[in-house]
């Protein structure tokens, strides 16, 4: 399990580092840093730039402030002296799962199109319209590895009942396989496109213990109880966490486990660099903090034990 934890954490760190480099590249490519040496007002920078999508440009400037490249005053922004170091060491490189890199490169390219218009057909970040691209992302080795980690933490085996909130198109197959044929896997997602891809695979594999539901996880009221509830890379699409965390706790059996996989923001400085690119998905808000999750858990009426595994996993045991 330790090796899986390291793989997840090291790859997330690399995703942030590469995003940081691409963020800097945008500032150089579009002459934003140049302009900032002579203009200091937000409005001047926004109006003088040839970038047509001004809200995205504003988001880029705000991200530069968050990662420490720019400094914000009242209505003005200034360049700071900034240095950024990437260290490649043998230990972290051995955990790299490189096939996420070309997918991220595609996303970085999409920003160029998004600068023209947010509706550009070359932007492939919509859960329905671009469910094929999302399926490719979810099929990456990185994603399979965090599902293996979930399986290992939850000790998933035939006969167990699992609820997967925001299941996407691949988890129903990879997690569903582990709990059948005597168990039950219920996957909930609000994207009919993703569920349609998952369903065609489930039909082919005849996983009749896998049930998929097209629902919004913010409004569901589960009737059954589960041994394990999974939330992997889903909280960043929710404006508030407490209702969903409460739903997840309600759905758990006594001694059941809620497994959350996320790049928790306290653990990853400069995560805003990655978030800038993920915001091409309109539902994206921000990666959650452990603090916000703990707060939401405390608002529920349940006793729980919280375990932190590495930098990206929280396991909540319902007592």
């Amino acid at each position: 399990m330790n090796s899986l934890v390291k793989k997840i954490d090291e790859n997330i760190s690399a995703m942030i580092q590469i995003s940081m480099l691409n963020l800097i590249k945008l500032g150089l490519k579009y002459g934003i840093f140049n302009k900032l040496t002579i203009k200091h007002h937000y409005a001047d920078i926004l109006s003088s730039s040839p970038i047509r999508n001004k809200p995205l440009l504003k988001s880029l400037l705000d991200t530069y402030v968050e990662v420490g490249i720019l400094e914000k005053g009242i209505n003005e922004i200034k360049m700071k002296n900034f240095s950024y170091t990437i260290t490649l060491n043998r230990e972290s490189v051995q955990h790299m799962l490189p096939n996420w890199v070309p997918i991220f490169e595609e996303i970085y390219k999409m920003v160029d199109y998004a600068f023209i218009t947010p509706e550009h057909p070359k932007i492939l970040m919509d859960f329905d319209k671009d469910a094929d691209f999302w399926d490719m992302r979810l099929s990456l080795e990185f994603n399979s590895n965090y599902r293996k980690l979930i399986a290992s933490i939850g000790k998933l085996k035939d006969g167990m009942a699992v609820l997967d909130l925001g299941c996407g198109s691949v988890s129903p197959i990879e997690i569903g396989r582990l709990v059948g044929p005597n168990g039950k896997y219920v996957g909930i997602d609000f994207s009919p496109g993703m569920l349609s891809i998952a369903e065609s695979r489930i039909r082919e594999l005849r996983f009749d213990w896998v049930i998929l539901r097209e629902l919004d996880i913010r409004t569901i009221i589960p009737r059954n109880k589960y041994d394990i509830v999974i939330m992997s890379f889903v909280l960043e699409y929710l404006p508030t966490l407490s209702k969903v965390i409460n739903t997840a706790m309600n759905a758990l059996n006594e001694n059941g486990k809620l497994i959350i996989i996320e790049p928790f923001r306290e653990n990853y400085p400069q995560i805003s660099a990655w978030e800038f690119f993920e915001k091409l998905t309109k539902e994206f808000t921000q990666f959650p903090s452990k603090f916000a999750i703990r707060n939401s858990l405390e608002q529920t009426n349940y006793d729980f034990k919280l375990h932190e595994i590495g930098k990206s996993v929280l396991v909540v045991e319902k007592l």
Partner: protein
Amino acid sequence: MFIDPFVIRSINRSELRKRILLYLHEIYPSPTYLAEIARVVRSDPSNVKGALIGLGNRYNGHSSLVSLGLVEIIEENGFKYYRLSEYGKKVVELLKSYRSYYSKFM
């Protein structure tokens, strides 16, 4: 191996290219020759050649199955055979998974 989603979408919209790939997938890893592909997909050999390698102005060589890396040409004793590449095999498998999604959403 990165699979460009625009390639899959473009193949999905082209009935002939799709039929050729599905047939080559069916016989994979065996190669076959142009006339045989044309017979199975019920099309003219010149159209099949266009889809495989491009043909003058009528078929754009850049989007031919060989240029996209989906099909490879094997030359033996002066004959040319066509076989699905490893990349092409992955593309066809995804195309099959996405069939119902594409028919509902695209």
